[in-house]
């Protein structure tokens, strides 16, 4: 049994209360939701917050709502809920692809989208997914609410735009017609962190050419998406040659490091291989959406 260092604990009653508690307990307080990142780090004494502020009672943060051209997902939404949502599966298959390979059912029952994004682990899947879908993060703080694009949300490994006295409230995804998306991950074993994963989203115009494209990679030191690779596709009819070229550019743009999961050249190869696979699938799904 791993033994954490001493800490105190409070259970927030609503969002306002959670923000007040963050304010009161200061920089050594941490929000806890699913706890699947923070608790292991505390048990290994790598993280030692003095206060845990538990937001698991905040039902107002747990929702998946379609409103106009947006899908709004509360920060406390569990992975399982995302996995089981037909709205999510229909509109953003990449989320379902990713959720199927995030950890295991035990973690997915408890872990949340907000927790994943705020933890901002470089090997975290939903960060890539949200990048690729060009999602927006709604952040609440003492001064009210602000909306941040994903490109501004990520500040590097384990760092986000959410300040110490703020709370991630909601993620917004824009619904586009004739769109498709996909995610694929290679791991040593189910539940392991990704060796590499790739995500792609495309939007087609009425004539089937690529109007909008986004490519993201997980666990290879890439900030945001790969504009140069995306540019290859834009305005073109989807074609295997373009996937190959875009994947080549994406693989060249990332910065993998050698570790127990594999050497740099293998990871770069995977970035290439997986980018091609997700582009193929995303385009096929978009074409299917067009026909449908």
């Amino acid at each position, binding site marked *: 049994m791993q033994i954490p260092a001493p800490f105190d604990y409070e259970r927030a009653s609503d969002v306002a209360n959670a923000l007040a508690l963050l304010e009161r307990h200061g920089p050594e307080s941490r929000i806890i939701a699913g706890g699947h990142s923070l608790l292991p780090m505390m048990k290994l004494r790598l993280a030692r917050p003095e206060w845990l502020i538990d937001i698991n009672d905040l039902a107002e943060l747990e929702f998946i709502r379609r409103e106009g051209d947006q899908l709004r997902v509360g920060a406390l939404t569990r992975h399982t809920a995302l996995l089981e949502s037909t709205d999510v599966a229909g509109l953003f298959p990449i989320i379902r692809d990713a959720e199927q390979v995030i950890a295991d059912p035990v973690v997915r029952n408890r872990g949340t989208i907000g927790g994943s994004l705020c933890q901002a682990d470089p090997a975290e899947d939903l960060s890539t997914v949200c990048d690729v879908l060009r999602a927006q993060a709604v952040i609440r703080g003492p001064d009210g609410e602000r909306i941040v694009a994903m490109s501004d949300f990520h500040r590097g490994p384990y760092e986000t735009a959410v300040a110490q006295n703020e709370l991630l409230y909601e993620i917004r995804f824009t619904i586009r017609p004739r769109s498709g998306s996909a995610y694929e991950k*290679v791991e*040593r074993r*189910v539940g392991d962190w990704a060796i590499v994963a790739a995500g792609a989203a495309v939007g087609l115009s009425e004539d089937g050419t690529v109007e909008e494209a986004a490519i993201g990679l997980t666990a290879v030191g890439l900030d945001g998406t790969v504009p140069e690779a995306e540019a290859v596709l834009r305005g073109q009819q989807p074609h295997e040659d373009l996937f190959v070229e875009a994947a080549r550019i994406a693989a060249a743009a990332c910065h993998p490091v050698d570790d127990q999961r*594999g*050497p740099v050249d293998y990871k770069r190869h995977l970035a290439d291989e*997986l980018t091609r696979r997700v582009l193929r699938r995303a385009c096929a799904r978009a074409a299917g959406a067009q026909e449908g």
Partner: protein
Amino acid sequence: MTTTQEHAPNPAAGDPGRPIGFGRLQRKEDPRFVRGKGTYIDDIVLPGMLHGAILRAPVAHARLVSIDTTEALAHPKVLAVITGKDLQALNLAWAPTLSADVQAVLVTDKVRFQGQEVAFAVAEDRYAARDALELIDVEYDMLPPVIDARRALDPGAPVIRDDVEGRTDNRIFDWEIGDAAETEAVFATADVVVAQEVVYPRVHPAPMETCGAVADFDPIDGRLTLYETTQAPHAHRTLYAIVAGIPEHKIRIVSPDIGGGFGNKVGIYPGYVLAVVGSIVTGKPVKWVEDRSENLMSTSFARDYIMQGEIAATKEGKILAVRTNVLADHGAFNATAQPTKNPAGFFSIFTGSYDLQAAYCKVTGVYTNKAPGGVAYACSFRVTEAVYLVERMVDILARKLDMDPAELRLKNFIKPEQFPYANKTGWVYDSGNYEPAMRLSMQMAGYEDLRREQLEKRERGELMGIGVSFFTETVGAGPRKHFDIVGLGMADGAELRVHPTGKAVVRISVQSQGQGHETTFAQIVAEELGIPPESIDVVHGDTDQTPFGLGTYGSRSTPVSGGAVALVARKVRDKARFIAAAMLETRPEDLEWEKGRWFVKGDPSAGKTIAEIAFGAHGTVALPEGIDGNLDAEVTYDPPNLTFPFGAYICVVDVDAGTGHVKVRRFIAVDDCGTRINPMIIEGQVHGGLTDGVGMALMEIIAFDEEGNCLSSSFMDYLIPTAMEVPDWETGFTVTPSPHHPIGAKGIGESATVGSPPAIVNAIVDALAPYGVTHMDMPCTPARVWEAMQGRARPPV
């Protein structure tokens, strides 16, 4: 004789689902386990109990300069902080290992591996004990570490064991067996010789329950009660008596429910000793339970063998000889648990299932700055490494000869009429009939169809592999004249009492860690006495309640203790005959046995059941001269030979050519463990072992960086397989009883762990044949498979 029949259901049992004796039977221990009512070490809470925690070295090799415990001792909840110096005063700083070496309990001179025990804090609760560790100030003087075993014997390599007077290098032993000259002669004239370096990386048993102890020393009568996660309670008691100087009759070892052992819980760990010292120092019970990282970093690992293999054959595919030179990494202390005369365990079974003209091996054991251990993880004393070596070499030979690997094996098996078979390294295989097992596995797999499918897939550029392995184990150590551990002969005891109402208790010296002993041993007694298994309690794991014996490891429970239990039941049955004769007023020789009762020959209605006889024994019947008024007996069983289970395994894998990811699609396992006592338990053992095999083949390794930092110190880094990585196991069996074992049983506990890794790796290498791959070392992670496809396969680090 080999059969494919299960033991026939006993007609005497009204319900065919509840055999009296051998047969499928739900495990008697499971109701408490599935209800969460097992009692493990951490469930034991004694009045006034304190908690200990171990401060571990953050570096692999460093001289200890100073330890300051002042601040830790000032913690309001801390009662004691014990250092190596304190242990030196008690002459307990070093303890003997199970391999004629010594191991530091706490560091006194220098740290020899990362995670080594440096100090022990005792506090009112486990949180405070952990907090105290952060208050201990230790100063180290760094030394260059020896991490790569290949560099351990380099001139000028740092000497790890400078505690041993006169030691100038890191060599532990050189051991050889077989005839080197004869083997060389065969190799020199053979048509075909292939050589390959085969590495079995360091892996870890990783039992679900980590190691722990609760020590309760009574200062009034000097009695020590020690609750421990141990697979060998009696051997531990003797060693504690020798090491700690506590008289053996004042020591009681209790091994409660154990959450998995796999060899990890054979040895005596510093934590156990420290809990004892903590209890002596504080006068209160002290609990110590290690966390997962401690278990992975500091307790017995397994394998770590670098094997240079060579195999010689005729061009027609007759295998002539096998030769190997092994470099064995034993870590910082030689703490493997193995028979005294076998420094490389039973590795000499590397001759496999084949009729060879010659064989030779040399094993060199070396120290490195890594955790000690070596024999663990269902290894049958290094049978795992041996089988892996020979089964890889045979596959490499098949590729060289362009022969089907199954056909090559069939061509070279030891023939049934050659048993008992004396191999070239000194073993006498008790019984075997290999071809039927091989044929059955091929039939179950649909071997020809699989090969056709593979050809079609190759044409499409898809990678599919079929891997075969055929193993022979040597287990059930063993005859005491040959095998001992620190001088204790490897025999086991059993005591059986039948109570007046015909219910019985059998006390055994081996210790279950999940194997189902409470069921299997009850079934052996049931088979011999004809009383239902549910009427028989099996008592184990408490030295005050059980006879002496060496414990459970190396698949020895059924081969050794199973023999003891069968014999003790027969002794009771023989005694029952005399008592029944007295009760029936006839002569013992006029009685005949049928399962459960003695009756008068020619008059089946005149008889006495075991229950009636038991009551008679304790009742008023006038007993014959020399017969005590009970129905009890005891034996110690010294097996005349080891047993040699075998099996044929076939694995089918699909490899993603774009990512190197391996999917084990099918696995067919045909096992022959001799007489099958409880087929359900056997299948469970096989399923578990096969899953182990997938883990080792695909993902498990205890890796180190160049400084000796353990890179596999949590389950995030040391991967063990889940249900997602394993297929539906397809199991089959043949039955070739052991001729010398009282019930013909051979042991099954480690067969699947031994047999499955070569089948999986052979399948992967087979899948990669289009890339010219002839060998790759485990673990076959996606990255390593991809590197092999690029022609850059490399040994694991």
